[in-house]
């Protein structure tokens, strides 16, 4: 009983914290709307008599004191109504959610590349620290850190789209509709469109993760239990993968989870370069055209993504390492 109660309490506490953060984000979104957006101008234009303005203002509840307006906003937000987009004349939440699959597939593909490259490369660099290969990989990672993500995208487009003509330079290509999900992973055209953006996005995370895997592995390889495993006669491969990597995973997740916010920003940049019709691209369109409801809805959606991922990471590290203190410290 007791063994189960502690983790459950931990998860409950994290969920409560996540809810509080979401509430804060919603309040910020409300403040931004109140400061930037005048819905009346969008609805009626400039040339409307003052009396009519006042009447509509009252009808929409815009003359109510702000706590009342905030309560109404939060009430509607809880039901999924975050306002109407000026550009699209539709529910902003629908507009933003329709773009989610594109962003998600891009991030998924990039994360796969990062995982498949950084783990072997990091282990190799930790196991053979003085080899030429390791030096080459680490040298490349200094270079990689120094090339901004949008520039990587531009260079890839210049070489592979403009000069060689191998891959398309913008858009998602052909997609298949699966229920509400606009899927680009199932067609050859969609995958071709995905390749350059995914490589671009992964290029900015790779150097960091290679260094992280290498650092975490080096720590583990010097530890007593690895020496013990070696002394018992376990094979090198088994020691690296079964003993060291497994324990290197935790610091990796802890530091990696700090990158979730950066990942959102880098995704936005990548989407801009490749005109990838995801949430970030939509956000910049909303900013250029001052579509305030759409801007705030994007902020709420991104905040939600951020909170969910962080909570999942916390729960995952709890599951991976039962030693994590459950009493308050985290």
């Amino acid at each position, binding site marked *: 009983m007791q063994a189960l109660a502690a983790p459950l309490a931990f998860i409950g506490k994290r969920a409560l914290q996540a809810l509080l953060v979401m509430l804060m984000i919603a309040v910020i979104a409300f403040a931004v709307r109140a400061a930037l957006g005048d819905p009346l101008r969008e609805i009626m234009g400039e040339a409307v008599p003052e009396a009519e303005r006042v009447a509509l203002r009252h009808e929409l509840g815009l003359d109510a004191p702000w706590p009342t307006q905030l309560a109404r906003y939060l009430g509607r937000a809880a039901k999924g109504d975050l306002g109407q987009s000026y550009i699209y004349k539709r529910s902003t939440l629908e507009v933003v959610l329709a773009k989610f699959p594109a962003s998600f597939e891009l991030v998924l593909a990039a994360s796969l590349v990062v995982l498949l490259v950084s783990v072997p490369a990091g282990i190799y660099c930790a196991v053979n620290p003085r080899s030429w290969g390791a030096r080459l990989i680490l040298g490349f990672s*200094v270079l990689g850190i*120094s090339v901004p993500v949008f520039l990587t995208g*531009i260079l890839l487009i210049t070489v592979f789209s403009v000069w060689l003509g191998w891959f398309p330079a913008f858009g998602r290509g052909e997609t298949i509709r699966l229920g509400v999900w606009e899927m680009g992973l199932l067609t050859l055209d969609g995958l071709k469109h995905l390749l350059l953006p995914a490589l671009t996005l992964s290029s900015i995370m790779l150097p960091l993760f290679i260094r992280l895997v290498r650092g975490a592995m080096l720590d583990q390889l010097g530890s007593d239990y690895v020496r013990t495993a070696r002394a018992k006669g376990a094979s090198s491969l088994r020691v690296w993968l079964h003993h060291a990597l497994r324990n290197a995973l935790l610091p990796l997740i802890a530091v990696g989870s*700090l990158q979730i*916010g950066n990942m959102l920003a880098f995704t936005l940049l990548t989407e801009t370069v490749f005109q990838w019709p995801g949430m970030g691209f939509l*956000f910049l369109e909303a900013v250029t055209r001052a579509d305030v409801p759409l801007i705030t809805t994007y902020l709420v959606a991104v905040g939600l993504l951020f909170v969910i991922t962080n909570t999942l990471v916390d729960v995952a590290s709890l599951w991976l390492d039962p030693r994590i203190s459950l009493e308050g410290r985290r």
Partner: protein
Amino acid sequence: MSVRNSRPALAAIRAFALDRPGSALAAMLLGVIALAALAAPLIAPQNPFDLASFDVLDAELPPSWLKGGSDRFLLGADSQGRDLFSAILYGTRISLTVGVLAVAIQAAIGIPLGLVAGYVGGRVDSLIARVADVQLSLSTLMLAIVALALVRAGLGGDTLGRLAVPLLVLVIGLAEWPTFARTARAATQVEAAKEHVRAGRALGASSAAIVRRHILPNILSPLIVVATTQIAGAIMAEAALSFLGLGLPVTQPSLGTLIRSGYDLIFAGIWWVTVIPGLTLVGVLVAVNVLGDALRDALDPRLAR
């Protein structure tokens, strides 16, 4: 105090130049770029901010070494007939200025907070550490994008353009202070436990005097290392924001703005307007990062990875 500290630093610099020719090269490259950017008004053949002096007939001229290039335009011209070499000189100047000023703000906020957290400890420490953690996980770039996007949506692109330099400095400066705070805090904790600090306290020196005279001078090395990498980060952030249209306007281009304004032309085969400023940016960033790595190894072996 400063004289005594500068000698090992000088020796370290000399050893560093001999041991690591690559890093010395990076330092030299950075020096040349910074000097050229500083002397931009003297070197540049054209004033890239004077739109009236551009000639549309010069638009999209390739670099002088390519077919159709002109000697007047060493690196070619952009779509308005702006000399790219002049634009890059001034653009680098703006990028470096924003980077250095933003890092100055980061240091001005982060170092005192880190010193206090590390020296005082207890609740103050855990409060500062917690706030720093939260702020770091939010991502500087994302915070800056959102802040500038709201300015743009609220005040319009023109106002944003006019206020771009102070806004960029402020946003990048405010969003990144935790890195300095963390480094200062960790180093202060180590230093505060040492004999000379305890001796100072036993002799009745005030906390302020101990921090200023005994701790700060001894934690400068890691802070210098952090400042270097932070400058690279700030320059990169500025470029990214300008590329998104949330930074400097086309009339006053930084490297990021130049990359953005040339981006559409790639598809017409006019690559130089984007690629040359891009390579300049990479050159600056590689040089700063290599230098930062080398400084870390030379000044602070504990941090070497």
